[in-house]
């Protein structure tokens, strides 16, 4: 079994960074949801904030690492002018062209929204800390932003997985 440098970067971009992002999202969402005064004691709130801060910053940093590595390292291999590149191969066949014209086009753009939204969430959690538990509106807004960050990353991740199947980078 061999793994090329390109294959390794594709795995890092899509599976390693993406998997950490997903884990951080699951923990962060649970933390944000339960950040209510009726659900936690003051001591519990302080303890929870430490984990929540770590989770949201991990998610934001992973989102940046994923889009930057994807755009500047993996994407050039995908879109190379070479007729054997994934983009050329997909576009050459009318049955697979939509994977590029819709799937890749959506993925490459929408994925960049995730780090912007995730960074805003990380800032809100760090800046307001336990104060989020007292302010329903701010906590709801933070949670909505957090879910939107995940949704954009999910679109990029799902299409990335399919694209790697129909037009793998070699």
């Amino acid at each position, binding site marked *: 079994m061999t793994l090329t440098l390109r294959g390794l970067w594709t795995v890092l971009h899509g599976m390693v960074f993406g998997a950490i992002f997903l884990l951080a999202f699951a923990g962060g969402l649970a933390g944000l949801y339960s950040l209510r005064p009726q659900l936690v004691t003051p001591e519990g709130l302080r303890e929870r904030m430490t984990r929540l801060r770590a989770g949201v910053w991990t998610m934001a940093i992973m989102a940046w690492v994923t889009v930057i590595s994807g755009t500047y390292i993996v994407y050039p291999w995908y879109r190379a002018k070479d007729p054997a590149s994934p983009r050329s191969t997909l576009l050459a066949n009318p049955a697979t062209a939509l994977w590029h014209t819709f799937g890749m086009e959506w993925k490459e753009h929408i994925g960049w*929204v995730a780090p912007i939204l995730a960074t805003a969430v990380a800032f809100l959690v760090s800046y307001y800390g336990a104060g989020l538990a007292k302010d329903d509106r701010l906590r709801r807004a933070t949670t909505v932003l957090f879910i939107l960050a995940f949704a954009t990353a999910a679109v990029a991740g799902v299409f990335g997985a399919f694209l790697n199947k129909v037009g793998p980078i070699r």
Partner: protein
Amino acid sequence: MAMPSTGHESPANGAGAAALLAAGIGTFLMGILTAWAEASATIKGLLVWYGPAGPLTGKTGVPVLAWLLIWAILHAAWRGKEVNFRSIYRGALTLILLGFLFLFPPVFEAFGR
């Protein structure tokens, strides 16, 4: 039910509103720039910051830089102040959803026809 005391008073909502609105503007700009690049070959050419990755670099780089700049300005202006959070949040959410719309291929590709 009384709120548990955490020993800290929550800061004013201005900084939070600034972060939300800046994120909304950044997302909206990304959508607009993506559609604009489809409509104009000149703009598309100007957005090629790194040849091998094409115009995607500028289409994402410009909004990211604008987002950071706008965030810094809004943060400086609203930090420590109470603002109309509901209106700003709704505005930010609207901008984010409009950004999503313009980042949807059938929509931004329509600008290229």
